[in-house]
């Protein structure tokens, strides 16, 4: 059976202005439709940079990106509609309420009226924020903000969802809700690209993993496959340390 490629990256490089090193270094990868693809790597490995290029927030120095067969460089407008992004930072207006934030972002996706309203109410309920919907975001706890940050990225039901450390700094309950929901989305057909420093979570959650360092993929495969390959390692964390070494990063 012919595989459906959601994301195809060829020889991608990114050098930030006024820097010497490549944040992405001739990187190639493929993500199949319906996959949960984990980008793992130490701090400064280039995960956020990769996601930023893939969703056309910054432009690559060289290389090619195709999303659902559409070239990112020449047809970014059509890609915008099918992707969703959950940034590493909380990207919400702190002085607007949850509802106001989501209404605004929904409008940005062209959603409006009752359809938008129902979608917002449904998502807010799912993530346990219903009774705080009309409070300003800056009064939220870290976990609540993370959940809101996620909702804002999936309001428009994207086909491909990029998540940059969606579960960083939150409690077990919030983490469980988020991972459960993402799994459900994935079952409904959403392709997910996700970064994390949480190896255990990635091991359970991802269907495929790429470990990157210094802008390059060191190794990729399914979690089970990687563990098989490094049979001396007990879990993914060991694999990670084995591959990327123990030195500290910027």
């Amino acid at each position, binding site marked *: 059976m012919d595989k459906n490629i959601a994301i195809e990256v060829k020889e991608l490089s990114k050098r930030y202005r006024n820097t010497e090193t490549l944040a992405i270094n001739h990187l190639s990868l493929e993500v199949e439709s319906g996959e949960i693809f984990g980008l793992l790597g130490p701090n400064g490995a280039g995960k956020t940079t990769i996601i930023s290029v893939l969703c056309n927030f910054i432009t690559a120095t060289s290389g090619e990106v195709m999303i659902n067969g559409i070239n990112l460089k020449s047809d970014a407008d059509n890609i915008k509609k099918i992707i969703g*992004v959950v940034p590493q930072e909380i990207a919400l207006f702190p002085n607007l309420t949850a509802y106001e934030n989501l209404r605004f972002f929904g409008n940005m996706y062209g959603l409006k009226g009752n359809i938008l309203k129902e979608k917002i109410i449904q998502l807010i309920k799912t993530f346990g924020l219903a009774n705080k919907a009309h409070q300003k975001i800056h009064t939220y706890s870290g976990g609540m903000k993370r959940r809101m940050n996620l909702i804002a990225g999936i309001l428009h039901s994207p086909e491909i969802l990029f998540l940059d450390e969606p579960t960083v700094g939150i409690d077990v309950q919030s983490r469980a809700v988020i991972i459960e929901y993402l799994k459900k989305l994935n079952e409904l057909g959403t392709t997910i690209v996700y970064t994390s420093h949480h190896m255990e979570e990635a091991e359970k959650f991802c269907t495929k993993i790429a470990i990157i360092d210094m802008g390059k993929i060191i190794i990729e495969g399914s979690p089970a496959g990687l563990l098989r390959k490094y049979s001396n390692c007990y879990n993914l964390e060991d694999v990670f340390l084995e591959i990327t070494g123990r030195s500290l990063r910027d």
Partner: protein
Amino acid sequence: MLKYLASTIKDFIILSRDKAGLAMLFLMPAALIIIMTLLQDSTFKALEEKKLPILVLNYDKDTFGINIVEGLKKSKFFKVTEQPDIGEQSENELKMQVAKGAFQIGVVIHKNATNVLRNNIKFNIVQLLPEKEDLIFGDEPLLLQNAAKIESYFDPITKNSFKQSITSALHEFSSAVEAKILFGIYSSLFRELLGMEIKNKANFTNLVEIESAYASINDEVIVVPNSVQHNVPAWTIFAMFFIVIPLAGNIIKERESGVSMRLRIMAGSNLPFILGKITTFFVVGLLQAATMLLIGVLILPLIGLPQLIVGDSYSALILLTASVALAAAGYGVVIGSIATSQEQSSIFGSISVVIFAAIGGIWVPVFIMSETMQLVSKFSPLNWALNGYYDVFLRNAGISEILYYVAMLMIFFLICICIAWYYNMSRKEN
């Protein structure tokens, strides 16, 4: 369109929750207007009442000379001192007084000025008549006499532009006196030859008023507004430009919080967001202006100050205010786009607005600045705005007369937007 509207609404909500920011935008200028107007009230009064000391030497002592001296005395603009005629020496004495700076202007009306004038008028009349009538005014044929009637001397430190306006004012004024004499000759001629009396004599004699000359002096050099007419528009403009700080802060906050990343990914272009912000702060600018002008009209009279007079042309006032609000919003956007941190933008924003205000004549009116500073002031958008308001308030200017300032402010706005656009594009490339 949906993006633009949603964006505008969002910025309105955010701004309306920023109580400190709103207080700065509305209470600060209100306080400044009241305080500065009170402080400067007496200074402006002194400025307004200051008359130019002028020394006049009248050798003529006939219709022309007497009329000129009377006219100058009647004018609110000059403080006339007459130099006694003690013969030849008098003129030298006058020149010395002026050179010394005791008087800013010295005017000498030459001996026989009236006679020369009469002679030349008669000569001109004779030229028009058939040859046999050339002795109509007497036994001897008339000759054109070439003599200056009036001469002026200036204090050496007087500015050139000022000299010119005074000279042309005097010239205009003396022409009016000439016209009066001309009328007198014609009317006696008519009476003699035709036995007719010319009507409306009164109208003609009243023509001689220094006011016309006075007005032209006003136009050229000095418009002296009172404290209210200066301070209300001045601090209104200042406050409108102070939206730079919340506006630029808003842009940077969004950029730093990652919201702008989300927005850029969603919308591609950030034009709708920028337009939304400009709209929001544009409306705030209009509200500020309306509030401040109302303070000038309603509140200031209550505390013993003159009422603000806003002129006749509301359309000009609205057009001008709208362009000031746009220029200020544009400036805020450009600072928000260039600055890399909140601190940077609020420091640079406030200092640059204060500098623009200082050179633009907000603190100290331009007309009492040195000539160099007057030139420098032309580079401040706040100065264009202030001049526009002066024109509307003090000269009853309509739309066509303030179009220059409106155009300058709009060009400033467009340049700001282009620069901001460039910076936003290059951020993506980094």
